[in-house]
């Protein structure tokens, strides 16, 4: 395959993200919601431009990581480290949010409390599953 065509192939995750945004733009346009259509459309095109920019042979490694365009094993290792930090920060933030909600919401029945509790449980379950998968592949 031609090198230039090879370079234009963006990652599967970016194909999904860009497609979702552009389909969202089309759906909004069909409904006559032009503000949403423009927002989604611009978002999709920016995502596509970012992915194509990261595919350039001279792109910096941090550019590839930020654009989810991993080229080799080092990129994937660095991306895992980055996502691990994101996961730890998300877990701590949701835990802090849950504590604040429980302390401030005396009724204990607000939808926000249940939403926060669900987020915390889902993150903990995802963490447990990720650990099991990592150990099995280890």
């Amino acid at each position, binding site marked *: 395959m031609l090198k230039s065509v090879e370079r234009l192939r963006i990652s599967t995750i970016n194909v999904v993200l860009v497609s979702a945004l552009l389909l969202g733009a089309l759906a909004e346009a069909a409904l006559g919601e032009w503000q949403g259509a423009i927002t989604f459309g611009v978002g999709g095109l920016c995502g596509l431009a970012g992915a194509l920019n990261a595919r350039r*042979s001279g792109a*910096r*490694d941090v550019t*590839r990581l930020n654009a989810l365009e991993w*080229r*080799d*094993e*080092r*990129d994937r*290792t660095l991306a895992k480290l980055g996502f691990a930090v994101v996961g730890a920060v998300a877990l701590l933030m949701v835990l802090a949010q849950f504590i604040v909600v429980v302390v401030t919401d005396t009724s204990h029945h607000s939808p926000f409390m249940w939403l926060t509790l669900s987020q915390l449980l889902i993150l903990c379950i995802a963490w447990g599953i990720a650990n099991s998968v990592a150990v099995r592949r280890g």
Partner: protein
Amino acid sequence: MVTSILVTMKSEVRSLRTAAGLSQGALAAELGVSRQTINAIETGRYDPSLSLAAQLSRYFKQSIEEIFDVEER
């Protein structure tokens, strides 16, 4: 006896590459990795996987032990 587990990896990739007259980008293209990965291996910031080490070994026709050496700190 307590064995030290603090080790650093020394590689001969830079000297082999320059001896072959290759740029980092050219070697990266040969191995299907980024130029930054070759640079990180050469400067000791990244330890390659066994498969990448084997690729380098095959490319330079040297054993992995000849290219990479482990130093205890």
